[in-house]
């Protein structure tokens, strides 16, 4: 049992790293524009497909393919902002939500269209090999790279939100007109936010892809499904807290893995069931999330 718990925690933390990258993107966009971005995971899958094309199909160096994947993800984020979010900026949040879902489904459709000749694909790892085997589970160098990237990204975002650009982003979200009056370009801030979020999604896709096989819709509903866990993590973090999103992602990853314990062996979806119960309890007890202080009525 101890071994099983150890396996669940270790795998949960490493899977949680991917969820965290997705959740950070979701929170970033929510903070900046109040939009539930259903396309966040597909930024990652699209970036993964692009990186795969660079490394495997075109024989580019890994670093170049990696950057190309991130660039494609960022381009998709910027295009989403310009073609969907900006034209709908005065629409209701539900309309925006449906708009991002449309972007995700369109991306998945294109991936299917372009990838079905070989529906199951494998992205090479940045570094092959296993760094350690605690409790018999494989901690690969790829896992460690992902963890390292998450730490760097989280630190960078913490610094960013204290920088003038970060403050501009928050100002633009809280009061767009006033922000414009003091010289902040809301349009630029919005594009910057979507660009950063798309890069975060791209990192999630490109870093997690080599751990599994990938197909169209990989990060949305495929083998690396991280959209729903990413949203859960963001909700646990109160939809506004970056550290909360990271901690929430780790919690989601570990709880999900606990569903793989042998005591749940005969119940399909044991992990999902535990996750939903956990989330339900959190929402009932602390609807504002675990990491955001309750708003004071004014």
């Amino acid at each position, binding site marked *: 049992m101890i071994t099983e718990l150890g396996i669940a925690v270790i795998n949960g933390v490493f899977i949680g790293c991917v969820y965290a990258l997705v959740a950070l993107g979701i929170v970033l966009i929510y903070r900046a524009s109040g939009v539930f971005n259903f396309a966040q995971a597909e930024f990652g899958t699209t970036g993964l497909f692009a990186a795969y094309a660079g490394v495997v199909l075109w024989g580019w160096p890994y670093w170049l393919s990696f950057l190309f994947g991130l660039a494609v993800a960022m381009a998709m984020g910027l295009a989403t902002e310009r073609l969907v979010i900006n034209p709908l900026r005065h629409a209701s949040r539900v309309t925006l*939500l449906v708009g991002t879902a449309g972007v995700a489904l369109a991306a998945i459709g294109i991936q*299917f*269209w372009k990838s079905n000749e070989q529906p199951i*694909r494998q992205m090479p790892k940045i570094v092959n090999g296993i760094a350690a*085997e605690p409790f018999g589970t494989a901690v690969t160098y790829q896992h460690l790279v992902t963890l390292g990237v998450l730490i760097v990204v989280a630190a960078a975002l913490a610094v960013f939100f204290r920088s003038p650009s970060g403050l501009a982003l928050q100002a633009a979200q809280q009061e767009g007109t006033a922000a414009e009056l003091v010289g902040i370009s809301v349009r630029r801030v919005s594009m910057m936010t979507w660009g950063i979020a798309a890069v975060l999604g791209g990192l999630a896709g490109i870093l997690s892809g080599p751990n*599994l096989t990938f197909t169209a819709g990989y990060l949305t*509903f495929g*083998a690396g499904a991280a959209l729903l866990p990413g949203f859960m993590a963001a909700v646990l973090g109160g939809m506004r807290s970056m550290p909360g999103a990271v901690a929430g992602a780790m919690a989601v990853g570990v709880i999900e893995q606990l569903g*793989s314990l*042998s005591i749940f062996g005969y119940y399909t979806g044991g992990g999902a069931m535990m996750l939903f119960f956990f989330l339900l309890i959190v929402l009932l007890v602390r609807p504002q999330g675990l990491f955001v202080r309750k708003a004071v009525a004014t």
Partner: protein
Amino acid sequence: MRIRKRLRLVAALLSIVAFTVIAGCGLKPGIAQLYAPGGTGYGAQGALPGQPAVPGQSGTFAGAPGGTELDALPGSTASGQQYGTAGTGGTTAAARGSGSGGQAAGPTAQAVAGPADTTGVTESTIKIGLHAPVTGAAAFPQRSFERAVGVYASYINSRGGINGRNLKVLFRDDGFDPNKARAVCKDLALQQKVFLIIGGAGSDQIDSCARYANSVGVPYISAGVHETRPGLGPLSALSTYYAASLTYEQQSPLLSRLVTQQFSGQKIGLMVASNDSLDNYFAVQQESLERAIGDNLEFAERVPKTIQSEAPTIAAQICNSGVEAVVWNGAPSGLINVSKSMTCDVRFLGPGNTNGINIVATGGCPQLDNAQFFSGFPQLDKINQLDPAFEPAYRKENDGADPDDIGIAMWGIEKLISQMLAAGGKDLSRQSFMAALDSGQTFSNNVYPPVNFGQSRFGGTGMHLLRADCSQRQFITERLNVK
């Protein structure tokens, strides 16, 4: 205010769940349009009037070896042709007392007797339907299916068709989803009015469609999958169902023998997907392995039908157990994902068919090197020896494209169905067709092992054994017609 806030959060969560479920169905845009409305027919063209019809019954190619045993397992029967040989009966999970009841002959054609039902049959054509996943967790390459479906139909049509009628095959993607499978089968049966339906792969999809086909009296033929499903009863009880290869339960003793011969005295594990349609197989295989290797069966566990984030945990469990081999029956993508997360070398073995296709070797190598899976159809290394007509016909139909194993599978099943349709006679009806199958006649075509429904609706008599050769990133045919 607080309640509204909570309601908003709950609504957002529900939206997320709904979106994920809808997206998760894996519907590929373009697939439906590709085959609908009306579906693209394959093979109805190209008949050459005046050419003699190819004998359809128990047909073998002159000069082609008939069911060769390459390296027979001790105790397994050399294959040869099986004219008049009874098919194997179903297998019961004695441990659970929930067997399929396949020992007795299945429902006979009399059960569906009545006015001759000639739906899908005209003076000039026989229209049949086929469903298989080109999207979802067991996705097969769409292009492969586009190329493969209808190759044999065109081939036989160019030689006079089946008793003078051309064969036309309609294909539908079932998305590896039982609900979608039922919907596409409903379309094939009621809108397209096909004569019969073929189930390509996926036990849940085949189960779902077979039960629907039975409800509307449409003959349904599939590769062998599970025999029974909790609450729904055995497939052999369906009056229109026929399995053209060994069921998973029937393959369990073959697997146990393989394990005994190759891993004597070593620890073995059993992992089966948690679909309820595999409950009986799980019990039968566990019992069979316990009988064969006793305490060396280290674990017998169920795994999720679609393995996602669970892959590393399952891999760790396998490696921590110290087993040498795992008998696996689950989705191919899950197998690949688990193998990629493993820190140890373990051999995988399992029943056919989907884990033995080359896309699994392509995705799973090098971890799946030497994995062995049974299959209803041979691989590319043997097909030209067994059926020299396949490759030229495939290339001719596809502008010289290289054949693949999906092409072999489709060729084999269409050939088998053509033989069965020919056996239904010139005055073909669903009744005459099923009477011909129930008559005990053996259908042998050098691709699928011989099939005989005289004793049971589970008409397979053997399986080919494939082995993953990661130096070529494909499966090779290790043994033919293992019994």
